[in-house]
C-alpha cells in the first residue's frame, strides 16, 4: 500500500487522485518515530513529518512554500486530516531530520515525528 501511495505522490497525479491517496493515508503511522537522517541515495525517498497546528489551507500553503524552496525536495503533499507532510526527495538527495525540524518551525508549526520509507 505504501508503495502505491509513494508512486501516486511521486507521479504528481491529479487532485482527485491525490485526495484519494491522502484518504488512504488517514491511518496514522504505527509508531511515530524519528528515523536517522537519510544518507544520499540513488532512489527517491518518502518522508512523512507529523506536525501540530496545521489546521487550514493557509497553513498547508505555508508548509508547501517553505519545503519546496529546498533543493532536495521534489514534491510536498499535505494531509490536514493526519496533520502530516509527505515529502518526496529528488533522487540522490538527502534531507536530514534537523533540517526538516527547522523547516517545520520556519513554517510556524511544531514537529511531532518523522517517518521515512524508501520509495
Amino acid at each position, binding site marked *: 500500500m505504501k508503495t502505491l501511495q509513494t508512486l501516486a505522490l511521486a507521479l504528481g497525479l491529479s487532485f482527485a487522485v491525490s485526495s484519494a491517496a491522502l484518504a488512504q493515508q488517514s491511518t496514522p503511522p504505527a509508531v511515530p518515530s524519528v528515523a536517522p537522517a537519510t544518507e544520499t541515495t540513488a532512489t527517491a525517498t518518502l518522508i512523512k513529518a507529523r506536525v501540530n497546528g496545521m*489546521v487550514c489551507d493557509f497553513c498547508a*500553503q505555508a508548509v508547501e*512554500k*517553505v519545503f519546496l524552496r529546498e533543493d532536495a525536495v521534489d514534491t510536498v503533499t499535505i494531509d490536514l486530516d493526519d496533520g502530516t507532510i509527505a515529502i518526496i526527495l529528488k533522487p540522490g538527495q538527502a534531507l536530514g531530520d534537523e533540517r526538516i525540524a527547522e523547516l517545520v518551525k520556519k513554517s*510556524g508549526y511544531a514537529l511531532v515525528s518523522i517517518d521515512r520509507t524508501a520509495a
Partner: protein
Amino acid sequence: MKIRTLAAVYAASLGVPPLVAEARPVSYPGGWTVMQQNSGDASSLHIHYSPTFSDSIRLYAESNWANDWRFAGLQYNRLIKRWNMPSAQANAYFKLAAGGAQPFGGGDTRAAAFVGFATDWETRRWFLSYETRAYALGFDETAMQSARVGIAPYVGDYGDVHTWLMLEAEHQPEADEPVTLTPIIRLFYGVQLLEFGYTPATEAYRLNYIIRF
C-alpha cells in the same frame, strides 16, 4: 457596499485597517498578502509582507464612516505566541501602526497611530477570534473591539472549497450603532478567501477579500 467607499480606500494611497476581525496578520517567510475589507462602518486595504512566520510589515489604509476619518500608514504585526496543538492552533498578535489621519469634510492631516491586540483559536471545525484597537488620531481618540465565532458545516480536504458560517460582534463606542452583529459566510479556496456579510443594525453589507502569494 458603497462605491465611494471603495474609491476612497483605493485613492487613500497605501495602508488602512478596517475595524473588523481579520484573518491572520502574518504569513509564511517571504509571503505577501493583500486584504480588502468593506463594511458599512469602514473600508480598508492592507498589503503585507512577512519576512518570518511571526512578523509582517503592512501598508494600511482605512476610511472609517462610523467615526468620520481616514487613516493611512505603516503597520507592524507581531505574532506574540502560537500554540500548535494536534488538532487546533491558537495565536496572540500585537499590532502597531503609525501614519496620518484626516477627518472627513476637510481638516489637516495629523500624525496618527493605533495599537492593537488580537487572538484566535481555530480547529478545522470551529473558529474563535477577538481583536481590540485603540486609535490616537490627533483630532480624536477612540477604541473598538470585535469578536467572531465560526463553524464549518463540513470539513474539506486541502484544496477543497471551505465554507464557514460566522457571527461577528463589533463594538465601536462612538458609532451611531455602537454594538452590531454581522452574520458572515466565508468561502476559502486555495490562496483566496472571500467573505460576505450583512449587518442588520446598520443595513450594511460586508465584503472582504484576501489573497496570499
